[in-house]
């Protein structure tokens, strides 16, 4: 015991003393030729093992130096000076030491013409041996060292030392750069063999010789590894199959097959999706991997370095939007994509896609329209069956002609074949329950549609920076060719007693086509560093035909051969538009302003061939715009935006095709419509603090519309028949405020977002030619919080509360209610392979006088999965809508009408599935 403590004390003292025994090293340097001290020589101590720099100093005017606090040990004493030869000495330091004066030897400095080396790859001169890496077989994950062993004339010994042609390799370069220093082993151990294209072995002249051009005869054996342009080559894919036997509904299944192969810049991928769980196309993640670029998105960068994202909606094919949540969809989606890029100059992208969709839905609608003191109530029932085939083809070719000119050509075609059947029954009553009308309708439609478009963009940059010219040409055409059979029985009532009916059995043959061609030239001229001017001119021409022939069924001939003149028509339309525009930009680091305006001269010509009528219109539309962006502090930004926009009436609003599909709800045109003009103001502010991790955003939007095109509904209070006609009106206003505040509560490691919002909307329309204002006020607040721990859990809760207050001048009633949506998302991970995912959403809507109970729904989805073999395989079990409450009820209130819609939903179902994510070794999914 006694001994031990003595020993401990000794050790303690020893360690303390060794700690305290830091040495002072001093000395001096001189030039023996001049017999003068040398100033500013670097005296450094390096650690001998790995030549790590330990301490350094410089000699004083007297040539003296001191290094204090030096730990005792062995060092290399390195003395360097630009005009003297380097001196390296092994020294051992124990206690304070003064080294004898060091005499520096002058070094001849060759001062030829100065060469500034800027890091260009080293030029390979002399005899070079080149090995093509791919012609030597190595194992799949081999590194370069393994590859070198395979090369004739190269040996790698057990210590990793490389010899080429019998000489030790002193340098390994990667693409001519000395990234890995002069430890050749580092490069060859850290690089994958399959990344290397060529191994070049040569004698590198000494640096000195290379820079001065004077060959000093010294060479170093050097290996240069030339990398492949893009080492990516391989394939990856996914097979996912899920199915579930159900007791009460159809069996659910969903199968996905995705595959992608790539070689450098060439990419070929394909997918096949097949299922009836309302999966609509590729998921976002899969779209990234297999679908290629989103066809509706495009991006460009302007001369101020701003990136502009453009989104072109699917407007050109005019296809009705199906909400995949409602109804039952059986889908087959198949597609392929090919893309390639050559020399970073030309790229090609080509993708055909096919989709077949069978859709069925049963929708029940309740609507109540206020008419002064009384109300019109309609209960309807609609069964829809749609069978649609769609084939899309898209091609894109992009050429960077040279650094000044680029050309991009895009072509799209989109074909649809649709067959659908609709059965609708509806009964309208007054608020006292008096029967007003009833409808039974069966509509069968078959149509073929083709949407074609082409686009060419040419961009030219001038030698003067920021001076550019772009020329765009667009062409598109839309053709719809279809037939429908309409069988309907419409019964009107007066005071609850039948008062006339109408029975229809008609066949329609319609053919619609529009063609649009337009071209735009934009020229940007920089006016000094801060200013620039943009001038543009757009010319477009639109031409359309709209033919419809309606035949009545003849009980005599048993054919549809009796033409109904009032429902047959032929229209032709020509629209010519000239839009010159100018925009002025001012841009500094803190302030960016742009002000611009365009004027649209539209000449509009609509010919009704059936009635030989001609509607000629000439509009002058004005499009002013201004924006201001002020970064008044590094992390605070204020933005003010103004847009003035003219909207001209659509053809359908001026002179629609006569349509008798719904006898009690008809739409007629208004040839006297004027264009409407909307002023939009937007003020927003954002700030961000990285250290505090706080983000805040406020946004105020005001929209004011003059001559707004709204509807006049002429409602026959007796029969309930409604005729809707568009009309110009004033007084439409909307004010919306939205804000957002996000931060992290560091103590509990939880992220919070709070977003209060407020909206005020005033909408004017007409009922029976009386102007009515509906005002909606809706304040709300959203709250979101998230807490996650890697590989353990991930939870988030979101709550959105909104209060709605509606007021209509039609009968001076106020309706107010709240809606609240609470969502919970949680994943728990266990043992790296298990995860349990819960999604729960509770929606609640307060009752109103029209609906006598609150609308509540709880949707809970659960997924349990286990992965195998490092996520290569996944087995999962899914329960959708565990509580079987997906009833598909939606309530809405607009203008004067309350609507409740009930759609078919896939209710509770179970799925068992299996996924295989495969890839070749070394491949990386993009």
């Amino acid at each position: 015991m006694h001994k031990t403590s003595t020993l401990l004390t000794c050790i303690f003292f020893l360690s303390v003393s060794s700690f305290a025994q830091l040495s002072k090293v001093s000395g001096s340097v001189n030039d023996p030729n001049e017999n003068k001290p040398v100033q500013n020589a670097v005296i450094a101590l390096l650690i001998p093992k790995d030549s790590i720099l330990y301490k350094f100093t410089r000699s004083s005017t007297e040539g003296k130096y001191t290094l204090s606090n030096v730990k005792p040990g062995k060092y290399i004493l390195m003395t360097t000076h630009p005009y003297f030869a380097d001196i390296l000495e092994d020294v051992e330091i124990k206690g304070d030491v003064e080294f004898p004066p060091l005499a520096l030897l002058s070094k001849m400095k060759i001062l030829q013409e100065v060469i500034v080396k800027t890091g260009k790859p080293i030029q390979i001169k002399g005899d070079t041996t080149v090995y093509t890496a791919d012609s030597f077989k190595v194992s799949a994950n081999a590194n370069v060292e393994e590859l070198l062993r395979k090369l004739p004339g190269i040996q790698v010994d057990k210590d990793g030392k490389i010899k080429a042609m019998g000489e030790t390799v002193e340098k390994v370069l990667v693409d001519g750069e000395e990234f890995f220093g002069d430890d050749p082993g580092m490069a060859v151990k850290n690089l994958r063999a399959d990344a290397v294209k060529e191994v070049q072995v040569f004698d590198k002249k000494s640096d000195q010789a290379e820079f001065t051009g004077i060959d000093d005869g010294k060479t170093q054996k050097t290996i240069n590894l030339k990398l492949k342009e893009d080492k990516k080559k391989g394939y990856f894919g996914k097979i996912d199959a899920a199915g579930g036997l159900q007791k009460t509904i159809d069996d659910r299944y969903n199968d996905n097959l995705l595959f992608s192969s790539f070689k450098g810049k060439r990419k070929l991928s394909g997918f096949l999706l097949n299922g009836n769980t309302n999966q609509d196309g590729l998921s976002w993640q899969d779209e990234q991997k297999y679908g290629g670029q989103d066809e509706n998105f495009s991006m460009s960068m302007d001369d101020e370095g701003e990136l502009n994202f453009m989104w072109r909606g699917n407007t050109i094919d005019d296809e009705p939007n199906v909400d995949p949540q409602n109804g039952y969809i059986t889908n087959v989606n198949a597609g392929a994509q090919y893309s390639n890029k050559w020399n970073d100059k030309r790229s090609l992208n080509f993708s055909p896609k096919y989709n077949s969709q069978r859709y069925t839905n049963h929708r029940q609608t309740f609507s109540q329209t206020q008419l002064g003191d009384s109300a019109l109530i309609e209960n309807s029932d609609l069964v829809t069956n749609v069978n649609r085939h769609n084939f899309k083809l898209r091609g894109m070719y992009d050429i960077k002609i040279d650094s000044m000119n680029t050309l991009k050509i895009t072509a799209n075609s989109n074909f649809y074949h649709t067959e659908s059947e609709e059965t609708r029954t509806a009964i309208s009553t007054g608020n006292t329950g008096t029967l007003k009308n009833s409808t039974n309708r069966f509509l069968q439609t078959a149509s073929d549609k083709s949407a074609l478009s082409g686009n060419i963009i040419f961009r030219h940059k001038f030698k003067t920076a920021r001076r550019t010219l772009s020329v765009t040409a667009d062409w598109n055409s839309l053709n719809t060719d279809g037939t429908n059979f309409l069988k309907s029985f419409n019964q009107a009532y007066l005071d609850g007693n039948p008062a006339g009916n109408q029975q229809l059995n008609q066949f329609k043959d319609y053919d619609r086509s529009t063609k649009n061609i337009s071209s735009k030239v934009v020229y940007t001229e920089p006016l000094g560093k801060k200013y620039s001017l943009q001038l543009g001119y757009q010319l477009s021409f639109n031409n359309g035909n709209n033919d419809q022939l309606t035949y009545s069924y003849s009980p005599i001939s048993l054919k549809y051969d009796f033409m109904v003149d009032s429902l047959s028509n032929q229209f032709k339309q020509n629209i010519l538009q000239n839009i010159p525009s100018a925009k002025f930009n001012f841009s500094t680091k803190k302030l960016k302003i742009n002000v611009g305006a365009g004027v649209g001269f539209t000449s509009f010509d609509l010919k009704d061939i059936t009635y030989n009528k001609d509607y000629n219109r000439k509009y002058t539309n004005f499009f002013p715009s201004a924006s201001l962006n002020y970064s008044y502090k590094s992390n605070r930004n204020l933005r003010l935006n103004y847009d003035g926009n003219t909207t001209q009436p659509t053809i359908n609003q001026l002179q629609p095709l006569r349509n008798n599909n719904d006898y009690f709800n008809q739409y007629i045109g208004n040839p006297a419509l004027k264009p409407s003009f909307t002023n939009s103001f937007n003020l927003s502010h954002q700030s961000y603090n990285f250290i505090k991790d706080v983000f805040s955003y406020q946004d105020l939007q005001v929209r004011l519309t003059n001559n707004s095109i709204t509807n006049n509904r002429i409602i026959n209070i007796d029969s309930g028949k409604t005729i809707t006609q568009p009309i110009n009106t004033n007084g439409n206003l909307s004010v919306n405020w939205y804000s957002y505040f996000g931060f992290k509560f560091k103590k509990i490691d939880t992220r919070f977002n709070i977003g209060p919002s407020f909206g005020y909307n005033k909408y004017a329309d007409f009922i029976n030619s009386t102007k009515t204002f509906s005002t909606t006020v809706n304040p709300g607040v959203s709250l979101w919080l998230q807490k996650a721990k890697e590989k353990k859990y991930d939870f988030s809760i979101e709550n959105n509360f909104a209060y709605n207050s509606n007021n209509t001048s039609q009968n001076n009633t106020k309706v107010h209610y709240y809606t609240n949506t609470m969502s919970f998302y949680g994943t728990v991970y266990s043992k790296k392979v298990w995860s349990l995912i819960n999604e729960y959403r509770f929606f609640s809507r307060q009752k109103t006088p029209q609906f006598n109970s609150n609308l509540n729904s709880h949707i809970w989805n659960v997924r349990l999965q286990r992965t195998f073999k490092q996520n290569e395989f996944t087995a999962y079990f899914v329960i959708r809508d565990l509580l079987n409450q997906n009833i598909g009820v939606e309530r809405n209130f607009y203008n004067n009408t309350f609507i409740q819609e009930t759609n078919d939903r896939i209710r509770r179902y179970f799925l068992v599935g299996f996924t295989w994510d495969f890839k070749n070794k070394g491949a990386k999914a993009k």
Partner: protein
Amino acid sequence: MKIKTHFLLATALIFTGALNAQLFVSKATIEYEMKANIQKTMGNGSWMDMIKDVLPTFKTGYFTLTFADNKSVYKFDHWDGKVKLPEFLTKSDEENVWYYNYDAAKFNMQKSVWGSNFTIEDSIPVLEWRVTNENRIIAGFNCRKAVAKIFDSVYVFAFYTDEITIPGGPCSINGLPGTILGVTIPRLFTSWIATKVMVNEVKENEIKPIAAKKNYTLKFLKSTVYNQFKDWIVEDNNDEEKQQKNRYIWTILL
């Protein structure tokens, strides 16, 4: 051409001053050309691929290191004028400033992260340099190569010259017995190389610490950055995204 003149001037000075103190540069402005491969640092994904399509491969900017009395300021000067780049790629380069006082072993830097500026003040961290025997001439100066590892795993290859006495360099790369004139950080796809050494008209009044209401420590910055990036959870097998995440962190800390 300009570079040459400057160097010839410097040479003339050297010869007239012979072997006296003027031989060494202790007060000057060094211009560095920074070249970063933005196509490689931006990461992948169809969104990023779209952005890459409209961007050049490199961003090239010019920075200056102004020093005197063993104190230095390193900051942005100008972009290579051809193409204006989007703000998210340029803002932090333009805003970041490094001030070093080597006598006091203190530094002070302004960092801009996603548009948010803040200031760090601390003692100068010591990098572990491995000195080599390789030489290379940069901007007319003979430079010796040294290698260091930063952030535990990122290799930095630097060329320093003992003819310029301040132990500084671009950004926070320093601590060698002379000024670093060339740096390459392969994992950030970025390199710096001195293009001019200007010994006349040094704006000494610019060499001052960044004035700030609040200064944070380096330790605080590190913990803040790691804490914020903790929420960016990368799947185990996604090496590319892991590297991407690391590059973000390193660029902030550099």
